[in-house]
Each structure stands twice: as structure tokens, then as C-alpha cells.
């Protein structure tokens, strides 16, 4: 039942090797410069996890709406879901470094004796004492495990349903997926927000924003859609999806990319605007750090590069239906998505009481590149391994006929 291994398509093992090299370099980095390398590792790990979670959302949205146009590309999203357990494995080093090295490597509140710049330690900080019930170390790791278990459970269910349907063609699998999508959307939305609060927001535990989870969701959707456009374009160019995935499908996918561009801007702007308008120091300091030094330039780059340029680009119908244009846009969005994560994560790193710049040491670029490459390598390894095991499209899906004739 498996697709023939085509010599023109990538070899999964090659990607695993690339990933391994990246991970090894970033682990070396943890010995050379533990804090910077750990932050870079966190960025790389969240970058790849956000792509897989975005894929999970896309599969669930497909099922809950009983959509038909996306049936042809859903299988590729399901292939990416194979990477979720490995994302959990990638999370383990973060746990290890806080245990084996120093508890305050990443999340400073984990160490009650961590010196706050100018006012005592975390353990005597009233703002921490009010939050101890949530920001307790054991509870933090339990939450991470619960999140990953929930995601892996849903990912496996959708994959199993879809692949079993290829075998027996039963509509039961579609019904099962639809029910799981209804529950899964709520569970994954909550756990993914929680992951955003825990992994990114609690880096600076004084700060809080209820919109942060939505920003995290918007970002992961943009990343997943960009990757899906790239994969579709690649498979069309190489042959497997040629004549199956047409420009109408591409147009729909691009339109979703466009929609989430606007959504991302809406959420990011609202978060900034409310804090700017409220003008309360306990909220504004977070953005103040992000205006220091080069971060001001980065934030301007995000506004124009992550919103305005993609917005004006994808506003145009002809560009949304052309592969070269959308491949360029998808690469651009992925690059900017990484920048957005850096902007949200890295300024939380304080070096001698000062906001870390991008980067204090030139080696920082190496740790970041290695971590991202490591994550991407593992992601694509899992993807291609899954790709060769299953059919290129869900051939017995009740909606596949409609989808292949998609013409408007």
C-alpha cells in the first residue's frame, strides 16, 4: 500500500542527519554559552513545534467544516503530524538543562535564589509569590507533558482514521475524525495557549497578556500554511501531485495564508495597542525591553515585513495562483515567523541586567541556526518517513471526488 520511493524525492535519512548535526551543534552551544544557546534552542524547538501544531489545527478545521477543497492536501498535513512525538523528545533537553545545569537558565522563576536586578531575589518578589500556584516547577513540567500527550493523542487519531480509510473505505473513520475534531479544537486551543503562556510568556513572569495564546495560535497557523504551500509546490514540481493539486487549490491555500496574515496583525496590534493605551508600567515594561537597541529595528521590520508586505503581496489575485510567487511568499512568511519568535523570546534573556541583543556574541547566530536546522531536520525526517508509508492523497475519502474537480 505504500507509495513507491522516488529517487527524485528527498531521502528521510538525509534529513535526520542534517537534524542531528544541528542538534549536536546546539548541544555543544549549551556547554559554551548555556543561557544564549538554551534560548536559541527554545526558539528552534518552538518554531518546529508550532508548524506541527498548525498542521493539527488545519486537519481539525478541515474535519469540523466537512471541507472538500482541502482533502487533496490534508494527507500532507497528516504526514507532518508524525513529527509531534519527536517534538516532545526535542523538549526533553530543556528539562535536562534546567536540572543538570542551573534552574534559572531559561525560566528564571524556577530558581527562588535568582537575583533580580536591583530588587532582591525571585523568592522574595511579591509578584512571584502571588503566582507560585501556577509557576511551580513540578506543575510546569506536568503541564508540558499533558500538552504533548493531548497533541499526540489527537495527531495519532487523525492519522489512524485517515490511513485506515485508505484500506477499507469506511465512512466511520470520517465520522470519528469529525467528532475528534470538535473536542480536539477546544483541547488543542487551550493546551497550545497554555504552552505559549508557559514556554514564552513566563520567561518574563512579571508580564501577562491574555491575548498571547491567540498570537501563538495565529503564528503557528501562518507557519503551517506556509509549509503546506511549499510542500504542495514541491510535490507538484516533482510530479507526485501534478494534475491532482491544481491552481484553484493553491488559490484557496494562499487565501488562507492571506487571512491569517491579517489575523496575526489584528492580534499583535490589539495586544500592543491595549498595553500602549493602558500605559501601566507592569505591562509596558515588556515592550520597553523590545525597543532597546536593535530590537526597535526588529519590531519595525516585523510590522512592515510580517504584515504589510505579505498583505499587499497576497492581496493580488494573480500572485496567489502562481507557484513561484507563492513559494517566495511562503519562504518569506516562514523567515518572518522565526523573527517574530526571536522578538518574543530573546529579549527576555537578561545579561547582567540588560536585555540581550541579537546577538551579544557572534556565536549566537550559530546556536540559533543550529537549533532551527536541528528542529527542521527532525520535522522533515518524520514527514518524509511518513510520506513513503502512505498514499499521496486520501483516495477513499468521501470528499475526494469533489475535491479533485474543484473548479471555482
Amino acid at each position: 500500500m505504500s507509495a513507491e520511493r522516488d529517487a527524485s524525492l528527498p531521502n528521510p535519512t538525509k534529513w535526520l542527519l542534517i537534524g542531528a548535526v544541528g542538534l549536536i551543534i546546539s548541544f555543544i552551544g549549551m556547554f559554551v554559552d548555556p543561557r544564549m544557546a538554551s534560548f536559541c534552542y527554545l526558539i528552534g524547538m518552538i518554531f518546529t513545534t508550532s508548524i506541527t501544531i498548525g498542521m493539527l489545527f488545519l486537519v481539525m478545521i478541515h474535519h469540523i467544516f466537512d471541507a472538500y477543497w482541502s482533502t487533496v492536501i490534508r494527507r500532507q498535513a497528516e504526514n507532518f503530524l508524525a513529527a509531534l512525538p519527536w517534538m516532545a523528545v526535542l523538549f526533553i533537553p530543556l528539562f535536562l538543562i534546567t536540572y543538570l545545569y542551573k534552574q534559572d537558565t531559561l525560566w528564571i522563576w524556577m530558581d527562588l535564589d535568582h537575583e533580580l536586578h536591583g530588587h532582591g531575589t525571585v523568592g522574595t518578589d511579591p509578584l512571584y509569590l502571588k503566582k507560585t500556584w501556577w509557576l511551580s516547577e513540578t506543575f510546569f513540567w506536568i503541564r508540558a507533558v499533558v500538552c504533548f500527550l493531548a497533541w499526540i493523542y489527537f495527531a495519532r487519531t487523525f492519522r489512524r482514521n485517515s490511513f485506515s480509510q485508505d484500506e477499507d473505505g469506511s465512512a466511520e473513520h470520517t465520522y470519528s475524525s469529525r467528532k475528534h475534531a470538535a473536542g480536539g479544537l477546544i483541547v488543542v486551543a487551550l493546551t497550545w495557549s497554555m504552552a505559549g503562556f508557559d514556554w514564552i510568556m513566563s520567561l518574563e513572569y512579571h508580564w501577562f497578556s491574555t491575548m498571547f495564546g491567540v498570537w501563538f495560535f495565529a503564528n503557528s497557523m501562518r507557519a503551517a500554511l506556509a509549509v503546506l504551500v511549499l510542500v504542495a509546490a514541491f510535490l507538484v514540481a516533482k510530479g507526485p501531485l501534478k494534475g491532482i493539486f491544481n491552481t484553484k487549490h493553491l488559490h484557496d491555500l494562499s487565501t488562507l495564508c492571506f487571512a491569517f496574515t491579517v489575523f496575526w496583525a489584528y492580534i499583535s496590534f490589539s495586544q500592543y495597542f491595549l498595553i500602549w493605551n493602558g500605559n501601566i508600567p507592569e505591562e509596558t515594561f515588556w515592550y520597553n525591553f523590545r525597543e532597546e537597541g536593535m530590537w526597535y529595528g526588529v519590531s519595525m521590520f516585523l510590522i512592515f515585513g510580517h504584515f504589510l508586505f505579505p498583505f499587499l503581496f497576497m492581496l493580488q489575485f494573480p500572485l496567489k495562483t502562481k507557484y513561484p510567487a507563492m513559494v517566495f511568499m511562503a519562504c518569506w512568511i516562514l523567515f518572518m515567523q522565526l523573527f517574530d519568535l526571536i522578538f518574543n523570546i530573546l529579549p527576555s534573556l537578561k545579561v547582567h541586567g540588560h536585555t540581550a541583543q541579537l546577538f551579544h556574541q557572534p556565536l549566537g547566530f550559530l546556536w540559533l541556526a543550529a537549533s532551527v536546522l536541528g528542529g527542521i531536520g527532525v520535522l522533515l525526517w518524520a514527514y518524509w518517513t511518513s510520506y513513503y508509508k502512505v498514499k499521496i492523497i486520501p483516495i477513499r475519502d468521501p470528499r475526494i471526488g469533489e475535491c479533485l474537480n474543484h473548479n471555482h
Partner: protein
Amino acid sequence: MADKFGILAKFDTPADIMHAAEKVRDAGFKRWDVITPFPIHGMDGAMGLKRSWVPRFTIVGGTTGFITGMSMIFFTNAFDYKILIGGKPLFSPYFAFPVSYELTILFSAFASIIGMFILNKLPMHYHSALKTEKVAEMSDDKFFLYIESEDPQYDDVKTRSFIEGLHPVEVSDMEK
């Protein structure tokens, strides 16, 4: 017969009219149209229609709306009658943004509707098709195609035989 508006042909199924439209398109006629009771997918391509020009009106409207919002707030708050609220700057694109954004949408919508009216030459109070007794069938279960006598290629005899070659159910003249 100079006072003739055109020639009208009746078809029974959407497939028939699609094929007929493709032939008329390939024959190079310019002033012709089809009248169907409901939208038929793929008819745009069969008629050789280009993409609509409405989006161009929309982008102009949207840009105007955005600039209007920004300059309106600048004019009222920071220029004409300066108001200092809560220590905020007199003008900032941040608080002007929600209003500009909504005016963008409002003006885009207006421009789209106006553009659609202009491009469709609306309001059109009279059209020759309304004069035929077949107007009831046009909005019920039959499909029509007509070629206007204003078309540069139009020739009373040749065009009529061309239309009959499309195998319509019925061919008739349209009065002006």
C-alpha cells in the same frame, strides 16, 4: 433591419449553452451575452470574460479610507483643536489605527459597489431582453444567448445561420 437589437437563441440545458458560448467566443464576437436563470460555473471561461475590474475600485477606495481616517484624527485632535488626553501624544498612528482601519473597510465597500454599478452600466432601466415574451423563461428553466446587431461582425443573414448552427431550440429576433 436597422432597428433590430439582435438575435436571440434558446437552449434547454446548461451544457448546451456552455458549448454554444464557447463557439461564439471563438468566432470572435464582441457584443453578445448569455442570460441564465442561475450562475453557471465555468461560464466566465466559456464566454472568454477577463477578471473583473472591481478590485481596482476597491483598492482605491480602501487607500482613500485609510488616509481619510488618519488625516481626520490628525486634523481634529492635533491640528484644529488640540486635545491632550491622559498624557498621550496629540497624534499617534496607534490610536488613529482602529478608526482608519474601519474607514478602510467602509470606503472599500462603497467603492466596490460603485465600481460594480459603473462597470455593469447600472442602473439600466430598459433592456431589449425585457421586451420579449420569453423573459419569464429566462428566469425559470431556459438558457438564452444573444448577439447584438451593434457587433462589428454582425451580418443579418450570416449571423443568423451561425446561430442556427449552434443547435438552439428556437431562434428569434429582438426588438430595440
